[in-house]
């Protein structure tokens, strides 16, 4: 195993943690925005579908 392997693994692991973490954040933000829009639509239509 190369001496610098912890740095190499650390770099790739950090990249995946950051990118996947942001992906999860994006999906949560989308879910919340959709929910808020649904709520606003329901409120604005006064319950009429």
């Amino acid at each position: 195993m190369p001496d610098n392997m912890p740095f190499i693994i650390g770099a790739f692991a950090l990249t995946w943690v950051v990118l996947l973490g942001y992906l999860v954040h994006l999906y949560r933000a989308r879910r919340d925005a959709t929910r808020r829009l649904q709520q606003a639509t329901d409120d604005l239509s006064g319950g009429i579908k």
Partner: protein
Amino acid sequence: MGVGTVELSVAPARARRSTGMLIGLGVFLLLAATQAYSISISTPDRDMGHLQKIMYVHVPAAWNMMIAYFIVAIASLRYLWKGREKDDLLAAAAAETGALMTGLTLALGMIWGKPTWGIWWTWDARLTSTAVLFFIYVGYLILRAFVDDPDRRAQWSAAVGLLGALNVPIVYMSVRWWRTLHQVQSSPSTLDPNYTLSLRINAIAIMIVVLFFIRHRYQTMQLEAAADAMHERIALGDRGGINA
């Protein structure tokens, strides 16, 4: 200006969310494949050994941070010119992704710097100018979070977004304009062909990830703006006429 006028309905938003998840899965599988390929074919560098492989994440992150800021600059200019909300939202989405990639670039550079230079950080021109770029766009995001008036937020953001983008050429040229610890830009003529191919495919894969992030964030911001506009109408006592 046209801020606060976006209206979207919920059903297409849900359909886009499902499609977005599938696209996201595909994008990340592509990134995993390009990284696995690059790691498997790259021979150790004469000087750096296997550490050279960090290039496949550090350099693409840096290049794509610049692409994100280029989008910020174009969208900000368009907003200042035409005053359309969608340009403001696109600039904001690209700025958020750009700040993320800048933070990642800095962190990866530190991980590469420690075993190569013997230090995590130094006030070198390239490192310092990149850190300044990072803090400008963190400031941009803080500004957006603290200004309530949509028109004022969009105008100030466009100004800061453009000023921040002016720093990008300085970051790029810093290794040539000043004597720095950071090496000058590599080119295909100075790289082993195996490294060049691997670098390019990883840069393309991360570019697709970045464009996916920007698109996804932009669509979410449109939904948030539409919900805000509806809540404003509710607060003003306007009800009726909406088809979900």
